[in-house]
């Protein structure tokens, strides 16, 4: 009885089509990645917030951190920003304006998850994020997956 109910629910879900992109991205697991050659062993959610707000700009060994963002209209970026930074990208404009006056730049932006993976693979100081199913494990190492 229970498995029949599950099958019906699954069929209804398939008939209903895909969820809206924003909803889907928000519920999907986001993986935080570094290159396979990176020496970064772990990063906490608090540390990730500091890195992406540029409040912290060096790794514990003193090397420069290069946080990498996806484009501002990317659904994964919006979801990451909401979950990690507590605000959508457009809500941070005043914050970045303030940092601009100290010459501190926001994270670099790469257009696609593939580009992020390719970049962190060759730049051991870089850190990025993407949907878990988009991670190229031959080039990137998952540090942790954001809780859904």
């Amino acid at each position, binding site marked *: 009885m229970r498995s029949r109910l599950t099958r019906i629910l699954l069929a209804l879900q398939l008939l209903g089509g895909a969820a809206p992109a924003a909803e889907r991205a928000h519920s999907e697991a986001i993986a935080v990645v570094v290159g396979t050659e990176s020496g970064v062993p772990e990063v906490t959610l608090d*540390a990730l917030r500091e890195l992406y707000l540029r409040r912290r700009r*060096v790794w514990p060994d003193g090397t420069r951190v290069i946080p990498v963002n996806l484009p501002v209209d990317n659904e994964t970026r919006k979801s990451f920003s909401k979950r990690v930074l507590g605000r959508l990208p457009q809500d941070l404009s*005043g914050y970045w304006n303030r940092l*601009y*006056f100290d010459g501190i*730049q926001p994270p670099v932006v790469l257009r696609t998850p593939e580009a992020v993976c390719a970049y962190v693979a060759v730049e051991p100081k870089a850190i990025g994020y993407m949907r878990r199913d988009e991670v190229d494990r031959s080039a990137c190492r998952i540090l942790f997956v954001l809780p859904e």
Partner: protein
Amino acid sequence: MRTVIEVCRRAVATVPLALLLAASALAEPLVPGVTRDPSGVGIVFPGNLWISGDATLTLDAPETQPTTFELDDVSLLARWEPFSRLAFFGELRLENLFEVVEHEGVITSGGILEIERLYAETLLTPQLSLRVGKVFTPFGLWNVISRGPLTWTVEEPAITENVFPQRATGLSLLYQKTWQGWSFDATVYGPAQNQIQFRDTEDEGLDSGLLFGGRVAAGRDFGPAFASLGLNAAGFTRRESREWAAATGLDLEVYAGGHEITGELTYRVPTAGGRTTHGLYLQDAIPIVRTLYGVLRFEYFRRPDGPAATGQLVGLFWRPVPNVVLRADYIFGTRRLENFETGFQSSFSLLF
């Protein structure tokens, strides 16, 4: 009246040309090794040298003063990070280059060049940094971006102007920490101040002396909103006297639903007793469409030598491309003060 129309006509004629220049600057490819800042403003050279700048044209039509159109200031900002834990920052500002005043015509003074900020910064730990040099006094929210073109309004709130020392020279220690979703910020600074009008009398003029102060702030997410509250305190004295004054304050920022709500409350206590200078502002930057924002502000300000004034500001902030900012404000007020002028103000800023 004809002069006002002429001033406005010249100002309006300048805007399309500047927009065209800005757009072409954005489209222009940079040479190899030189990249544009991810924000769209500023250029990064090899060796971690970042350079940016801005120029602002303003058109002021106060209710009780002649209309003016001026090249308000031209700024150059540079940050160089030779090592990951060491940075140098400088800001040069050229002010009052030329002005067109109603009934008076064009006034050119050759400009005044000022070193607005100049400091070295070293990261002692990932959370703790030390700045040595001249900085904007980290008192409240507004003063640290001062008169930059990216403030939401052309005119700063009255309570942020000449109530506490606006620049500090010496040491600044900054601590930033995120813990369990909370953001903590702390800053202490001293020992010198730069150019604060110490007393509210004209004959005292500008002076400099000693300054010590600090700010602590804590913030966190509350559901879909982020809120932060800061406490400020500074003590300062003229170089020739041993009398100290103190300024204390609260600042608040809230981000919710695209709104950016900021506010400050400041009290300045005179040394030899008497009335305080105090005031507050509360401002909401409201997203209208894409990069166009509406701005509402309420202000209250009381100097020691007169009754209080209240004011309201209605404004627009538009950033059509990253290196162009257009602002227009109208200030209503119950009383005119030197730094609380009612009327219309607008500005056009180009950033590179």
